[in-house]
């Protein structure tokens, strides 16, 4: 882009109180031709009401099948700076903790090797380096790697696992989800970097049922912290909340989904019927000083969550109501291996694990991976008698 193209619609989006992505593109454009052409291309999209990107070709770095998304504009003559504008996914540290030195090391590389634009962060959790040329990919990776960074997943592989802030700064964390995320990310480097499956597979790890990383909606395998014993109540702190003006009945106990917890306004005390509690977190969220998670802690494992494409969106389904989560996490890893083997064997191309389970039946999945059926897996049993009986169900086969 030799002449400075006018961008009135982009300029309009610099107004207003919320920080502007256009301002960010302009900052990068002051130093980088690709970013300048991205701004022009965006204005063109705003005029045409259509995107101007072509499908990704196969681009990447040596030894990896994923981590780079190829992107080319369909208007290369008009915007030569974005003829190639590939994305690099950099695997974020667990819980998105950084030092300023670490972030600057990325900035220095990206200033030299790319557009200077990033997403903090992408949907899967990676740091996204947005826009560079094919010839820059390998040197960029080499420099990232020499600074201790690695690429995340893309395509039909294990996508970069991600997790919430966990025990680093949250009293609700039911296990060390930061450690688990780091551990499995390292255990499954091959699965992350070399696509070999029917389709993508996402793992997200939430420290508690509040699920701040949306694992139940956004991951094929959701690991959600929970506990098995009772809530721990500190009645003195209950009184403090009451005296500080919290309307405990209206704001806390009336919302209890199972009426497991009730409030005695006279005594200013909470009463718990432990067997009715479903560990939803509401009372804990509202009164963190007074109500705490139990002591027998672990996680629930759920499977199949995904967005709408293709068959419909699924929320993940419970397959293990409770599993201890302690290093080296062998029980979880063994289960993952069995799940992936079953999916690999039965899955069609571009069939997520949830769709496969729906197609083959949950019963067949559970038998295939060797998980015992328990009532926590369903809201209610089936209402039809169309059972797929197995040979071993019959006396003569026993």
């Amino acid at each position, binding site marked *: 882009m030799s002449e400075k193209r006018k961008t009135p619609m982009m300029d309009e989006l610099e107004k207003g109180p919320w920080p502007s992505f256009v301002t960010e593109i302009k900052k990068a454009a002051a130093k980088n031709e690709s970013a300048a052409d991205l701004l022009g291309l*965006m204005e063109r999209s705003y005029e045409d009401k259509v*995107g101007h990107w072509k499908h990704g070709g196969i681009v990447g770095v040596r030894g990896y099948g994923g981590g780079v998304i190829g992107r080319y504009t369909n208007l290369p003559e008009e915007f030569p700076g974005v003829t190639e504008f590939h994305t690099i996914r950099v695997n974020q540290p667990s*819980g998105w903790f*950084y030092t300023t030195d670490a972030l600057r090391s*990325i900035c220095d590389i990206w200033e030299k090797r790319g557009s200077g634009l*990033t997403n903090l962060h992408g949907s899967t959790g990676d740091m996204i380096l947005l826009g560079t040329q094919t010839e820059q990919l390998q040197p960029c990776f080499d420099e990232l790697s020499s600074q201790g960074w690695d690429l995340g997943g893309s395509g039909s592989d294990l996508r970069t696992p991600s997790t919430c802030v966990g025990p*680093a700064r949250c*009293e609700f964390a039911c296990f060390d989800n930061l450690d688990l995320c780091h551990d499995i990310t390292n255990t499954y480097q091959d699965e992350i970097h070399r696509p070999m499956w029917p389709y993508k597979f996402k793992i997200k790890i939430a420290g508690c049922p509040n699920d701040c990383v949306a694992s139940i909606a956004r991951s094929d395998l959701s690991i959600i912290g929970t506990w098995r014993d009772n809530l721990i109540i500190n009645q003195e702190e209950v009184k403090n909340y009451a005296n500080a003006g919290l309307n405990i009945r209206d704001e806390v106990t009336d919302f209890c989904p199972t009426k497991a917890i009730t409030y005695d306004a006279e005594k200013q005390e909470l009463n718990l019927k432990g067997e009715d509690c479903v560990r939803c977190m509401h009372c804990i969220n509202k009164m963190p000083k007074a109500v705490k998670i139990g002591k027998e802690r672990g996680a629930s494992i759920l499977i199949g969550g995904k967005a709408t494409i293709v068959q419909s969106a699924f929320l993940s389904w419970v397959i293990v109501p409770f599993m201890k989560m302690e290093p080296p996490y062998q029980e979880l890893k063994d289960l993952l291996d069995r799940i992936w083997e079953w999916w690999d064997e039965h899955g069609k191309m571009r069939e997520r694990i949830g769709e496969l389970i729906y197609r083959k039946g949950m019963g067949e999945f559970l038998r295939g991976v060797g998980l015992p059926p328990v009532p926590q897996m369903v809201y209610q049993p089936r209402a039809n008698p169309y059972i797929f009986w197995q040979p071993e169900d019959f006396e003569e086969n026993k």
Partner: protein
Amino acid sequence: MAKVMGQTDIGPPDFRKFLPPIVKENYGKWQYHEIVKPGVLKHVGESGDELYSVRVGSPRLVSIDWIRAICEIADRYCDGYLRFTSRHNVEFLVSNKDNLEPLLAELKEKGYPVGGTGNSMSNIVHTQGWIHCHTPATDASGIVKAVMDDLYEHFTGMDLPAKLRVALACCLNMCGAVHCSDIAILGVHRTPPRIDHENLAKTCEIPNVIAACPTAAIRPDPKNKSVKVNEERCMYCGNCYTMCPSMEILDPVNDGVAILVGGKVSNARTAPSFSRLAIPFLPNNPPRWPEVVEAVRNIVEVWIKDARKGERVGEWIERIGWENFFKKTGIPFTDKHIDDFIFSVPTFRTTTQFRW
């Protein structure tokens, strides 16, 4: 300079290297937290240590200049430690309380929005849109900017009935947790793919194109060495276009935006749930999508007025009923709202219990 060769499979840096000392000391031993004011969290450890986190909204698409600027701030007030949230916010981790007010003052002076905690609207989780996606039905960053400008006071304040999670995906692939958001802004295609018969066989694997269609609307067309689309069965998901660039789905005239409401991912109180269709179509009207901004504001305002304290959008709708949601918001209910895809049956009412 000697050529550096990248080592593969080293994995991400160990997060432990990036934890501030106060976090290392209180790891797993936090006692409770409070929201001191909008955007400011105070976590107290069993040790009595106090950590303040200051949450700042970002535009998600940020330059390295922006990253360096926030690094300077973190060096000044946080000994160089910071983190990001799952919703594109930065959190400055302040272990020295004396630094809190000077940090807030500098953030205010420089125009960084502080908020997104408690009963507020957090940052909008969103996709790439026209910035980088190849199947978008709309832009992402532009709509997000326009909506956040309009609802800014709900990010910096905590006056909502409950938390509000808005998400945007630029096509029906629904990247991001759009399908489980209080309010989902979704780019939609509405016309079947236009087939480039000349190039299709050259650029695409025909069996894969056929298999990509969830409604089996795509059939082989051996005469043209191409495929045919049964347009009555197409629901414009764009899955075939993802597999094959010769199935053009982008449509500048007819693409636009749908609004879905009432989803959530948290297990708190009610089970996680999907967002459901409120408005089937709004036009693409850049640069500020006024129809979308107005529609989102309307839903938020009716919710604020009508919800009980603590009710998220979906919980509010569950209590008042969808029939009253449409009445109170003035959104017309149409045949488009009645599900006719695969799992429609459980959405049909099987009781005489309803409201007028």
